[in-house]
Structures are given as C-alpha cells and as structure tokens.
C-alpha cells in the first residue's frame, strides 16, 4: 500500500547523516540538503512513491544567500527540501531529468529571483516582460520596483517560419478571440497536426508576490484575493490559513463552516463557467448561454452571503468577516436545489450529445503516468484517474467532517475532465447543504494582533482548478517577508502541451478549455 509509506523514514534510511531531517516543520517534514544532495533526496522519494510530484519551487532572498525550497507532495505527505546557495553564484543542478514537471517552476524561479539551473534547456524571460532589464530580479530584496528602468520595447515580434516549408508556426495570442486573457502560444503545425507548442506567459504578471512584501497582512488578504477574479475566495482562504498556521491559532468552528460554504459556492460558479465556456470554444453557443443563465443564481447567492458578486472578501485572519443570516439559509437551499434539478439535463448532454462526444471523446488524451510525471493537479488529474484532492488528502477547514465523494474518471480525455467538473457540481451542492444543516453556533472571528511572530508555513487549498499552494515567511513584523503562490493553472501548463502535441489544430480550443486555464492566477 503506497499510502502507508513513511517518506521521511525512507529518506533517513537512504541518506541519513548526509541530510538533515526535521519532522513536521513545514507540513509533514523539511529536509535540509545542500551541495546538490536535493537530487538524491528527490530520487529516493520518486523510487519510494510513484505519486511524488512537485508542488512549487520557492526562491527566497536570505541576505547573503539565496534559499531554494522545493515543495513536493507524495501520496500521504508534503515534504520541503531546502537548499542554500551563495548570492554571487546561484548555480544549482536542474531536476527536470528526474521529474519533468519541474520545468516551468525552474524557469519561473530563474526569471524572478535569478537562480541558475544548470542543465535546463531553456533560458528566456518566462514571466517578466521582454523589456525588463537583464540582471534585475524583482524578488530580491535589493530591488526597488519604482527604480527599475525598462529597456526600449522590441519593435515587432518576429515569427520564424522553419526552413523546408512543411512546418508552419502559428501564433495564438496575446489578443485572440478564443482567449479571454492575454497569453501567447506559438504553435508549430505540420499540415493539420500540432508538432510543438511554446507557451509564453507573463502578460498578466503584475508582481503580486513582490507587492505583498510591502503591505500588511490584512492588506495582503485583499491583494491576493485579486490574483484571480474567479477563484478569489480560495486565494484569500489559502493566505489567511497560512498566516494562522504561523500564528498557531485555531479559528472558531462556525467560521470554518462559513469558509467551506464560501469556497464551495466559488467552486460551483467556477465549474458552471468552465462547462459553459467549453461550449463556446467548441462552437456550441447554446450550451454556453444555458450554463451561464444557470450560473447567475449562484452569483446572487455569493452576493447574498458576502455583499459582492465576484470578490467576496469573506476571509480575514482569524475567521470570516460576515455571518450567514439564519433568514438567508432557506434561499440558499432552494436556489441550490433548483440547480440540482437542472443537472440531469446537462449530465445527459455531456454524456450522450453527439456534438460534444465527437469533439471531446478520445481527444486530448493525457495518460495517468504522464499526468504523474508532469505533476498535474485538480480536475485535470482526476480526469486521468489520479485520486488527488487536497480536501481529502490534507483536509483543511471543516472538510474533514463533511462527507463527500472524490470524482475520478479514467478515460483521460477532454470528455473525462469535463465530466469530473459536471459531477463535482453535485458534490459541491451536497457539501453546502450539509454545512448549512450542521452550521455550528458561536463567534465567527477571533481578534488577533496585527504583527505575526517569526516563522514560516506552507498551506494547500483545493481551488476549482486544483491544488493551490501558499508559502508565507514572517520576520516578526506586520508585513510578510516572502509570499509564494503557486496556482493550479501554472502546474497544468505542461498538460496543455502534452495534450495538444500530436493532435489536430482544430482541437486546441477544446483541449485548452478542458484544463480550465486561468492566466491571471498563473502570472500573478
């Protein structure tokens, strides 16, 4: 049984003495592995547990040194491998040969904090803009955002059509009818078949991680909420939970339930949005209109509970800001039951409708072993038969007390990924109904000091798109020293490349939307 593996014991027996193991420092454990030993630790973890996958790489400016923290999840644990490098020569061996899923994480860390991953095939701006000056890394402490002098912008982006004439490069984005958000994908095609996709993110990069360091914890709650307008509650919740972990406080049970209700309403509107958007992308506009019509009552519920349709601002450090009124509960329940009544129609449509099946069945196949290797998260991974759901694996808030099913499909295609979301809508309705029925009484918030004691914490939340990761380090003041956010879409970019390559160019939109991409999250 893989779930009975004690990963820290495995590492201790293989590398004991060479690396320093701290049990239960960050989540399950922290391993301090300097001088290139991080690769050995990772190899030991991959050998012991096939579900070892990277969650994030946090680069942190520690003064004279740069810290590189690799965060890995396994089937039953969450392990951080810490390494320190001198600032003058921040060279570290890449891990992408052991774990290909780390490729974009390394590219991002290289761009933002100036780490040099030896052996990484790519070296280009990935998140920062093209006119960003060379050698300036925004997440280093000596860089002041207002003093950065930009280089003159490139006159024109060029497209190099490869020699030979058989291959054609097509640029999708930054402004494109199929993209709601500006990102660029350079797609190489041979005839109708896609042979390569080069993603270029960063069009929505606002520098939120850096900005969070110069604002107070309370201001940061509203800042991180605006990382993404769709899964805003998840960001706020993940951040406040991380801060609460550093402060070592437990919030009142009623606040936990209200947080769960807010998060699930968020998931409901996000999944309805995606299922409708999928209709739009495959040219089935009626479906889009239907789903968005039925999404509006959920937006009204979010407004009813929080006072705003989109950014609900319910979360705060120590609890929630608004209570759910006793008189509102019947409205919430009836609205959700009305939605439940409409689900069989949609389910039948997604399962049996010929148009949808033709466009989605056996399209964009992402095999289970590939999804594991590429560290895919959320409904995309669950559509490939991987049982990964933070709500089950590492329950937070009240999820440990609420019964619900983890939806897994194993046909690994676009159809499976959309059906995972379809079924999760019903589970979310069940969760909200259960939480309303079992809503504990008591306070909704505890008052906490504005300054946070010195410390660090990691936290994970299951956002609608998958595992959302936060790392916060405090230096004892009222502003965080470092905030690291790894969003689910960032982890799922490799899935887009894997599903698009080898398929028809006409299937790009449906593959793309089946990952439910959110680039404002990805770029931060």
């Amino acid at each position, binding site marked *: 049984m893989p779930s009975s593996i004690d990963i820290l014991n495995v590492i201790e027996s293989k590398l004991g003495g060479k690396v320093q193991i701290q049990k239960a420092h960050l989540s399950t454990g922290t391993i301090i592995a300097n001088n290139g030993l991080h690769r050995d630790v990772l190899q030991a973890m991959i050998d012991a547990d096939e579900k070892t996958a990277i969650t994030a790489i946090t680069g942190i400016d520690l003064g004279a040194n740069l810290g590189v923290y690799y965060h890995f999840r396994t089937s039953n644990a969450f392990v951080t491998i810490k390494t320190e490098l001198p600032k003058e020569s921040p060279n570290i061996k890449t891990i992408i040969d052991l774990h290909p899923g780390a490729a974009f994480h390394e590219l991002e860390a290289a761009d933002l904090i100036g780490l040099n991953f030896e052996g990484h095939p790519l070296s280009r701006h990935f998140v*920062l*803009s*093209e*006119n*960003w000056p060379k050698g300036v890394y*925004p997440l280093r402490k000596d*860089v002041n*955002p*207002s003093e*950065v002098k*930009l280089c003159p*912008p*490139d006159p024109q982006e060029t497209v190099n059509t490869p020699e030979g004439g058989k291959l054609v490069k097509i640029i999708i984005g*930054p*402004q494109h*009818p199929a993209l*709601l*958000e*500006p990102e660029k994908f350079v797609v190489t095609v041979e005839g109708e078949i896609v042979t390569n996709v080069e993603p270029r993110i*960063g*069009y*929505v*990069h*606002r*520098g*939120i991680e*850096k*900005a969070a360091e110069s604002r107070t914890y309370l201001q940061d709650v*509203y*800042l991180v909420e*605006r*990382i*993404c*307008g*769709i899964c*805003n509650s998840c960001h706020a919740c993940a951040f406040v939970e991380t801060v609460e972990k550093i402060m070592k406080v437990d919030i009142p049970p009623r606040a936990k339930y209200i947080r769960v209700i807010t998060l699930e309403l968020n998931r409901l509107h996000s999944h309805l*949005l995606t299922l409708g958007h999928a209709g739009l992308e495959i040219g089935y506009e009626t479906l*889009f*209109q239907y789903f*968005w*019509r039925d999404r*509006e009552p959920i*937006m009204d519920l979010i407004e009813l509970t929080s006072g705003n*349709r*989109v*950014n609900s601002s319910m979360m705060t450090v120590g609890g929630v800001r608004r209570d759910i009124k006793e008189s509102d509960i019947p409205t919430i329940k009836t609205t959700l039951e009305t939605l439940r009544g409409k689900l069989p129609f949609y389910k039948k449509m997604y399962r049996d409708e010929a148009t949808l099946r033709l466009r989605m069945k056996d399209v964009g196949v992402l095999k289970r072993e590939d999804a594991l290797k590429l560290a895919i998260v959320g409904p995309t991974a669950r559509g490939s038969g991987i049982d990964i759901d933070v709500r089950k694996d590492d329950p937070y808030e009240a999820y440990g007390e609420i019964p619900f099913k983890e939806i897994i499909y194993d046909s690994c295609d676009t159809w499976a990924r959309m059906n995972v979301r379809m079924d999760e809508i019903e589970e979310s309705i069940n969760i909200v109904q259960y939480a309303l029925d079992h809503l504990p009484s008591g306070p909704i918030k505890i008052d906490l000091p504005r300054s946070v004691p010195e410390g660090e914490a990691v936290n994970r939340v299951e956002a609608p798109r998958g595992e959302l990761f936060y790392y916060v380090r405090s230096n004892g003041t009222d502003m965080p020293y470092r905030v690291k956010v790894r969003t689910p879409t960032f982890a799922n970019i490799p899935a887009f490349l894997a599903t698009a390559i080898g398929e028809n160019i006409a299937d790009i939109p449906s593959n793309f939307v089946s990952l439910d991409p*959110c680039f*404002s999250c990805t770029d931060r």
Partner: protein
Amino acid sequence: MIHFNSGACNGCDIEIVALLTPKYDVERFGVKLEPSPRHADVLLVTGPVTNQCAERLKRIYDQMPAPKFVVAIGACACSGGVFDGCCNVVGGVDKIIPVTAYIPGCPPRPESILDGVVKLLNALNPPKPKKQKHVEAAKPEAPKLETAPATVTEDNLVAQ
C-alpha cells in the same frame, strides 16, 4: 466592441462575458462583441496595464478604425487600483491610450457596465449640442473617481 485584458484578474472580464448571457443580454442595445480590433468601434479594457501588455494594447488601439472609443472597466483600468505601484504595472489605461469612459468598481456589476455602455451610446447620438457631457457610471467603493473625468464631444469625435 472588442474586449482586451491588459492585466486584469478575470473579475471584470467574466462580468463582461456575463453581459452577453441571457440575464443581461447586451445585444438588445445593438452591442456585439467582435473578435478582431479591425471590426470594432469600442475597445473595452480591463485590468491595470502591465509592462508586457502596454505595447500590445497600443497596437490593438491603432488597428481599430476611427471613430473609436475606449472604455476602461474596473478600478484597475481606471487608475491601477489595488495594483498601483506593483513592479510590473504601468498604471491605468489612460497612461497608454486615450479613454472615453470610465466604469469603476471591483469589479463593476454587469448592470453598471451596461449603464456605462448605454451612456456612451447616448452621448454619441446625433444631433448633439456642442457642450461637454460627462460619461460615468455611478458605483460605490470607486477609487479615485474624481481623477477620471471623461468627456465625449463632437469635436473629438470629428478629430478621431
């Protein structure tokens, strides 16, 4: 009209898409979302302008045929909003291209976007007396509304 996200969090963008759906149905006012800037008269911009998007935003504006109008949607597009001063953010949309109407809010409700669009359309309707007309949608919690006076006159219509 055409929509461009110059660095938004998706909040305003989704509200714009919600405008097209049955509950709000902006098409009944003769407003249609176009896929190409070359077919559009009105550019809806959401989000603060990031360094990477600034050049692209200008290029999209240049591709639009005159007369053309820009509507800044949301607090970020109006002034930079919560992201003002972030290391990769230039600021509000009016730092890059001229803006005709500002619709504040975080995000503005679909109704207030609708209201802004209709006010813009009314302001363009001939015949018009030659006086300045303010186009703004009322919305609470609007940051720096007073710094964003928007004007549409026949003069600048002709100039465009």
